[in-house]
């Protein structure tokens, strides 16, 4: 299983803060899957982190990973 987490304004698009998915090969595949499930993600801006590390290119998602979908940060 893979835990997919959504943060900030993305939770408005998905209506959930986290969801478990079965095996998925890589981040591109996961993004496609999430866009199908939550169409409002299509028009959202986000970055991806796997197990707390930012990834900027398509990356392998190993079982047991936590994948975060994160909109631009606005702390402080």
């Amino acid at each position: 299983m893979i835990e997919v987490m959504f943060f900030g304004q993305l939770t408005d698009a998905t209506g959930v803060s986290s969801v478990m998915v079965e095996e998925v090969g890589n981040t591109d595949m996961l993004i496609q899957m999430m866009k199908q499930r939550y169409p409002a993600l299509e028009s959202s801006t986000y970055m991806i982190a796997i197990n707390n590390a930012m990834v900027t290119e398509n990356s392998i998602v190993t079982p047991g990973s936590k994948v975060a979908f994160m909109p631009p940060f606005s702390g402080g």
Partner: protein
Amino acid sequence: MEAKKIRNIFTAGPVEAAFIADSIAKHSTKTSIGGHSIFLGQVRADLMDGKQVEAIEYTSHVDMALEVMATIREDIFTRYALTCMHVHHSLGVVKAGEICLFVFTSSKHRKVAIDACSECVERIKAELPVWGKEIFEGEGYQWKINQ
């Protein structure tokens, strides 16, 4: 390679002035310190299309934020001769006029403390996975955008 030490930086609700005072007072035993630099972020009651911000509700990808903060911390200590550095960021609701961020650096020399504090604040804003939801008086909200 030694593992980075993960320290909590999050506090529920606003950072209180008494907490800041306590933090300052604790440094009086560190008599090699010549200068402290403090940055405090305060929630603004901004007006947007006639609606006024009443509070900001902060959320974070906490595990990741603490790891990122440990990296920032390590990097700043490598490049600045600091005696110490403390960071506190609010989670949850912080009302307009309350403090949501407290960054505190100390060094033998003032310029080091000031530069390190300023850099730390910029990096927190840019690199920490934290989000602010600006809650309007009455009803409605919008997601904060950092400049």
